[in-house]
């Protein structure tokens, strides 16, 4: 089993989310728990992981969460560990049980917290690897038809 560093913020404790949630309050290692990151088939509230081809210090510069994860405030838990074979950093996140993700409106439009976490992880990976988040073409419907 790999070892993993927990970098969960304490925003859940109710402090100002924007100011606190992005910081690494305490880095420590522990054995990966059963059902932890990398275990396939987790339910919607389970861990999701991406491998970022950069060192942990680049993925979490200054110990701060990358911006896409910061947006989710204290509603998620984040963990990192070195990826095997010099592949960079495994970056994991999951929703905190019972804490709604900011901006989601599942009761109205069916937003999926797991999907929001997945998207944030992918954006964090892209930012670390390419410096920006790739944007899709805008569709004609987005822009209105050309005259």
């Amino acid at each position, binding site marked *: 089993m790999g070892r993993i560093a927990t970098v969960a913020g304490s925003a859940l404790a109710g402090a100002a989310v924007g100011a606190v949630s992005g910081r690494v309050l305490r880095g420590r290692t522990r054995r990966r728990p059963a059902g932890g990151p990398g275990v396939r088939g987790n339910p919607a509230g389970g861990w999701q992981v991406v491998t970022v081809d950069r060192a942990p210090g680049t993925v979490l510069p200054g110990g701060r969460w990358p911006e896409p994860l910061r947006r989710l405030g204290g509603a998620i838990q984040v963990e990192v560990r070195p990826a095997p074979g010099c592949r960079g950093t495994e970056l994991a996140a999951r929703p905190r049980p019972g804490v709604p993700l900011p901006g989601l409106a599942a009761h109205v439009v069916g937003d999926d917290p797991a999907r929001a976490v997945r998207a944030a992880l992918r954006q964090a990976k892209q930012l670390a690897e390419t410096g920006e988040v*790739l944007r899709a073409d805008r569709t004609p419907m987005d822009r209105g038809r050309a005259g």
Partner: protein
Amino acid sequence: MRALCWTGVDQVAVRQVPDPELRNGHDAIVRVRQSATCGGDLPLLAGRTPYVSVGDVLGHEFLGDVVEVGPEVRRHRVGDRVVVSASVACGTCWYCQGGLPSCCDNGNPEPEVGEATYGHPVPGVFGRPRATGGFAGSHAEFVRVPYADVGAFGVPDTVSDDRALFASDAAPAGWMAADVGGVRPGDVVAVWGAGAVGQLTARAAGLLGADRVIVVDDQDDRLRMAERHSDAETIDPRHADVPAELRERTGGRGPDVCVEAVGPAWDGRIRSLAERFTGAAERPPAVREAVHACRKGGTVVVLGEFDGHVDAFPLGAVSAKGLSVRGARQHGQNYVPMLLERMARGELRTEHLATHRMPLEQGAHGYALFRDRRDGCVRTVLSPDLPAAP
């Protein structure tokens, strides 16, 4: 701008669509000089690919001029004549750094669809639906090129548009097949399909030292092209038992490397919505034949673009004969500079593949010729600058 859009099953039409715009710092906008049809477009055209939508702009094999660059673009300037790799790759992720740009982790802004279909996100490709990025295609006056420093390549002055065009997709696909197939001097290589990719696979195998290259196809004009331009032997399945012929020509061993460059069999039947979305499987006859023909311990390379599943794959032969089966979308970023150099030296000629040239407005006719292989069509090349017929 004008663009050739998918408008329904077996229907395309030129429509006015908004000009592309820079969406990222690494983007460039390219004014298209030439854009080729490709066999990979045909499942889209026929409505066999989920997620294709009315208004999607087709085309992924193209060449043109840079007219606008984002602030992060370093290798290109306005006015550069470039050929663009069909797949979108960031150049910085683990896959790109490892020489697998068509497996790029960051080349698709909408990776969820690929994850659901293939277990992992698949990279973006121009002129394809959302599952592969939803980037507008090149059958248009202009096209947005993400990660332009990685996917666009300056064309040497000595290489004509007509030749360089195929460095975008067909030539790197063919070279990749020979490369990942491990073609070595003395090998016998068999290629199923004498379209542009098949012919350029045969040519690549020859340039890598294959002793004999044998191309299988049932179109006379394509076989003659393969003989003339790729220095290949040919087999026409209408007049020969292909496996028996290959055994005979290889001393009973079978070819060392077998390349499938045909794609899914197309029976002309429009699949129902239920079939499209439940993955009703088609059969890959050329793949089956290649697996059976390949020598023990040899390599089979699958170039055809199969969506989802196929049926009746001869897994037993793979196991019993110790075959290696390789497949990939073309890793163009690895090969385009080298291919352009070979084009400049005259080692790689591709002009003959563009059997038909026409303006965008005749795109429907061009695709029909290409799809039905009528009038000796190997590839239709569309040029937005050509005047539409009155």
